[in-house]
């Protein structure tokens, strides 16, 4: 019986619930500024106004692996954007590099359209799989950026080096790119190639910054708490090892 995992998960869940009720009592969001999300909001609004399309790339992360969390974040942000931009002339388009993710993207868009009473306007091709390998996925996304009048690219998911192809296509197509991935080499590439890179776990904060849902904000606070605990433990064990070594 692995109690360590149980303790960690239980503590995390408890912190989330605790911060949820704590945030209800106090005003303000108490989150640090991430300018990329503010610019994303503006880009979405501009895209709706001038009738251009927003492309949301969920990546190729396997939903059955830890990369699935990044894909879930991408789906959450897709839902937020779809609720805003579905009524525009060119509604948001979602691409995925995995069959399961493609189905989830379609389901998310359909639910958003139903919530907006736009079921008749929904098209299944709004959520599509462009390739089943990383580079075939990137190769499938590149022409889509040119052909669909994409003004804003949102890459939220698990991307590897193929993200450079997507961002280069966005730059050549004069569209703005906001990107975040859980892949380390991918983050390095996106830092150089994307207009608005999200480093580290900034990607996981998307739900809190876009949708401003209380539980999302509470989960961010819980992450910060656990992170400080981990930092403390690392420093403690490092000092302990150092002392032990010296002794």
């Amino acid at each position, binding site marked *: 019986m692995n109690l360590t995992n149980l303790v960690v998960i239980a503590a995390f869940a408890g912190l989330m619930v605790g911060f949820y009720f704590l945030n209800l009592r106090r005003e303000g969001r108490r989150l640090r500024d991430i300018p990329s999300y503010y610019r994303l909001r503006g880009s979405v609004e501009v895209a709706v106004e001038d009738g251009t399309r927003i492309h949301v790339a969920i990546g190729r992360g*396997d939903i059955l*692996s830890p990369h699935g969390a990044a894909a879930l974040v991408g789906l959450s942000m897709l839902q937020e954007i779809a609720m805003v931009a579905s009524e525009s002339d*060119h509604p948001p388009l979602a691409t995925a590099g995995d069959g399961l993710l493609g189905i989830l993207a379609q389901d998310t868009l359909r639910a958003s359209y139903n919530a907006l009473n736009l079921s008749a306007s929904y098209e299944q091709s709004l959520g599509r799989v462009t390739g089943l*390998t990383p580079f075939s996925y990137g190769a499938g996304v590149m022409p889509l950026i040119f052909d669909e009048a994409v003004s804003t690219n949102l890459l939220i998911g698990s991307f590897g080096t193929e993200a450079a192809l997507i961002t280069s296509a966005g730059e050549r197509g*004069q569209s703005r790119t906001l990107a975040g991935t859980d892949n380390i080499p991918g983050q390095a590439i996106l830092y150089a190639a994307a207009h608005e890179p999200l480093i580290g776990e900034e990607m996981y904060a998307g739900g809190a910054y876009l949708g401003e849902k209380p539980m999302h904000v509470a989960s961010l606070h819980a992450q910060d708490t656990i992170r400080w605990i981990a930092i403390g433990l690392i420093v403690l064990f490092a000092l302990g090892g150092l002392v032990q070594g010296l002794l």
Partner: protein
Amino acid sequence: MSSDFNQDSENDIPDWLRGMEDGNDDAEFGSGDLFPSDSSDQEDVPEWLAGIRSTESNDEPTFMDEEVPDKDTDEWLESIRDKHQAETENLKKPRTDADDNDDYLEKIRKLKETEDSEGDDDDEEDPGWGSVGSDEEPQDEIAAAWASNTGELDSTDDDEEDLPDWLSGLPSLDPVKDSPVRRQEPAENEDENDEWLQTIRQQNRGADEGLSGEKEEETPAEEEDDSELPHVSPLSDPPPDTGSLPTWLENLQTAGLVLPEDLRDEDEEIDEGFVESFDYRDEDVSSLLSEADDLPDWIGEDVEESEEEEEEEPDIQRLPPSIPQETESFTESEFEEDDGEDVEIEKAELPTWLQAMRPVEAVTSAADLGDEDDETTHREQEKVGPLSGLSDVLPAEPHVVHFGSQATPTPSFTLSDVQKRYSKLLLSMVEGETKSPPAEKRSVALPQQILRWVIAVVLVLVVVFVLWFRVDLFGMPAAGIPPENAAVINTVNTLTPGQRVLVAFEYQPALSGEMESVSAAIINHLLSKQVELVLFSSQPTGPGLAEAFLQQEYLVSDYLRNHQYVNLGYLSGGSAALLNFANDPRRAMPLQDASGANRWDQAPLSGISTLKDFAMVLVITDDPDMARSWVEQVQPILDPSSDGGGTPLVMAVSAQAEPLVYPYYLTSPRQVTGYVSGLSGGAFYESQNGVRIVANQYWNAYNVGLLLTVLIIALGVVFNLARQTFVNTGREKA
């Protein structure tokens, strides 16, 4: 229908006529205007009227001439007045125009002459509304209206042919019996009526009798009311071309019955009583048509004649059965004589705007009329139910039986070309709002394209040159082999022939070039140790990449050529499936040979129950997360005691994955026994083993490419910094 001229009369009044409704309160014609002025229509005299003024200023005087006081009036009115005077004089002259055979007034006059002998009451006549639906003599309408109260025209004149053309063209205006006109009997204003109007009245009577010819008996309407009733002409009939009639008067005919009060002109001295006598705009005139018995003879003859004409032509103006019967009764039954005979009255001519609103059935039903002689074909007979055979009954069954949801009924209009054009324009405007414009293809910035092409051409040319011509600029790396590489060499050296080694191909086809250069030396080393290779992959393209790699020319081995290795294939599920595979590979990947036997029970897989039973596990991957998954999911199974004594886990990784794999190498005990990263690691391995396989081939081109890339990046940074500085300096100066 046409009797409802009170409605929308304002809208139907042509502009020229509306211009005559001048709100001038100068009242030059007396105490009050004959026609109440409409202050909303303050328009200047239209040009056509001015034209008439100029052309007819010296022409025939108008009938108003004598009563018009001498004052400032518009010229056109003077022309009308003059014309009237001339006409009045001409009326007394014998008619010399032999071409006026169709002059209805002449006929009316003749009839009038016969009636005069019987002492007709000029002021009481059959209601002219019986002529609704009659297309006979439209000129009589207006003339009758004028004649009813003016009386200027001497109806007893025999000189019908002397009548001016404009007057002969006037329709007879027989006042309706029960119309408000009668309430203000012309007799009341008889003293003020113009003689010419009375003359017209008399002439009408005579013309009617003349037209009817045979029918001389008096109708009850005629007995009771001899006042001249306005004769409503079918609106759809074009007026006859009288030639000399002014245009405005002809237009009156086209518009149907024109109320005298519409012809307002404050400059004219028209009796107010005359106006009042015709001021039946707001009155209900439907009763006028109810007294069919009061129709004058000539109207009844007209009806008969029109009825004959109707029999020849399809009655396209027939109302559909869906329209309430009272309308039909209004048009037909009211004019039936008491003797029970059905007097077919010609249908009123509908105005164009009303025709456009007709239902399609009204047209088709009329067009589908078969036997013209059979009256019943004109009516829809019921075919089912107890009322079968009867006509003009409500249908027992709907014409069309709808199942399910009925389609939205759309009215059918007869549209003119202009209306169609406007409707199309409106439709396109509405549709344009719902349609989204096509996506515009975005253009690529040209400077970026040029720079990319330049970088690509330079890199490709240089690297291909070095590869093609086997330029040897750099020697193989010899000293300073990384310790992680050396650990792999040592691990492989510990293997004995016949031991099973699991090789996992976990890289993508795009990075096959690098991964083959990294792992070729390891595979070659394993082959030299004569171990049994078992291939596996959790990527869909993994098994194919493994086959392609092992069949390369640089891996010279009969073992590979003869396919003596085992390829387990692809395991779906990603990292979640790795744990299952590590615990029980037989269950996770069942394998059978061609005969159906369990392949796991055959060499070299016999005895394998977990991955721990393998002598070494080699993972070839480009993805650091995949490497991490193998370390986190599989390595605990390989070394359960975590003392380093279990099955060694060795990796061949891409250079991008090294930072994440190195910590696993650093741990104690090591979770990763050793790893080879990047082409440089492969070059070190080959150099250490004294072989020159793949890394050696690429080493020179690799170095040249790296240096060239460094040069391009450095130059680009310097150039962009200089440009940015120059631009900023220019802005500051500006």
